[in-house]
């Protein structure tokens, strides 16, 4: 009988429930990693994420910035010889990090929070404030100021957000399906 590490079965069920993909089908060929444009920036590139899931090593995986470096280009999904939607597995790990509060504090995590906060409150994205809020939160308000000046000249800076009429419908979606902490 095959030995399955402690916790690995539960973890497999969590990934299956979240995104419908089975990490146990991965045979570690490494094609996802060799094709991943962000692999050079990852401590745990995609094939290692799959391996750590197979071994039940969630605690090793969650605080790492690796899955948050993924840009969802879906090249891994397109090329996996086992037909695993690897990019969705990366999503599942991000989601478990949000649920357990084990997260890197920079990069895509605060970006995601600001983005979803806007969508929940206005129904649409206020892109001018997306970059500005992110840079403010990182305490580097002057980053990309040159770009902001160019956008201002082209009339592409929005001084207020667009709001939809039925904001309550979008709010209800967020209340029922969570996602924003």
């Amino acid at each position: 009988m095959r030995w399955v590490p402690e916790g690995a079965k539960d973890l497999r069920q969590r990934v299956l429930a979240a995104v419908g993909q089975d990490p146990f089908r991965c045979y570690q060929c490494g094609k996802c990693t060799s094709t991943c444009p962000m692999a050079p920036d990852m401590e745990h590139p995609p094939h290692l994420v799959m391996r750590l899931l197979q071994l039940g090593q969630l605690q090793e995986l969650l605080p790492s910035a690796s899955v948050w470096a993924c840009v969802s280009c879906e090249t891994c999904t397109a090329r996996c010889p086992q037909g695993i939607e690897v990019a969705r597995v990366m999503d599942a790990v991000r989601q478990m990090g949000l649920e357990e509060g084990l997260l890197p504090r920079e990069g895509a995590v605060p970006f995601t929070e600001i983005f979803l906060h806007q969508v929940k409150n206005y129904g649409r994205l206020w892109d001018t404030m997306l970059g500005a809020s992110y840079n403010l939160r990182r305490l580097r308000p002057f980053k990309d100021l040159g770009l902001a000046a160019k956008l201002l000249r082209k009339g592409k800076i929005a001084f207020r957000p667009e709001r939809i009429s039925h904001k309550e419908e979008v709010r209800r979606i967020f209340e029922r399906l969570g996602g924003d902490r």
Partner: protein
Amino acid sequence: MTTYGYYPGCALHSSSREYDLSVRAISQALGVELREIDDWNCCGASPAHWSREELSLALCQRNINLARGEGLEVVVAPCAACYNRFRVALSTLRQDEEKRRQVEEALGQEAALEVRVIHLLELLHERIVKDEFIPERPLEGLKVACYYGCLLLRPPKAVAEDDPENPTKMEEVIRALGAEAIEWPQKTCCCGASAGVTEVSRAERLSGGIVSAAKRRGADLIAAACPLCQVNLEVRQGGLGMPVVYISQLVGLALGKGPKEVGLDLLLIDPMPTLRKRGVV
């Protein structure tokens, strides 16, 4: 005249309004009336599916239900990211009953899954290549690098309307306009737009590689079909001076529209010197 639903998405209402402008400018000539879905919401883009899959599905499905409520059977999305999320939502909800139940509960109504969502490129290909369109002002001599990026093609099962490894529909449109489409292997490589705000050096590494490859192959400009790719390729190319225009802007020029009518003056890297040099404006 066919009536299609139109989902511009957030970028086309703000920082990429030249894309919206040029799509609206060409639609009549292509025999399509685009009706913007009333009270549409953001599709949630990547942050929604990173946080919870069902959230992304429900944000998309609300718009699809609105379209259905207006009697629209086909919705055109010019943004590759919105298009991608809609197609993934429809395909997931058709297959996964449990997720559909959750989404319907959050929406307070049944999910309309029979609506067809297409990307602008599909419409252009149908009206320009299949219908043998004759350009009023052919873009002869202009060398274009057609850039597809990720989200028009991947994940292939849900979104690709072309060969996901070597797509050619954009090149076919460009040739029908009288321009030359260069061959290059970077047309489906990721530009890193989703890291464009948070990890600038990574976005620059990817975008710079793509733009310099187009330059080496002798392209005059890059044509994009996504506002996120267009902006990222423009601002994170590392000062290579390569114009990046929307495919709809080139269609507009070939239809005889003026540069301002298609918003060429709103781009951050001015394509006019290149277009003048090639004698197409």
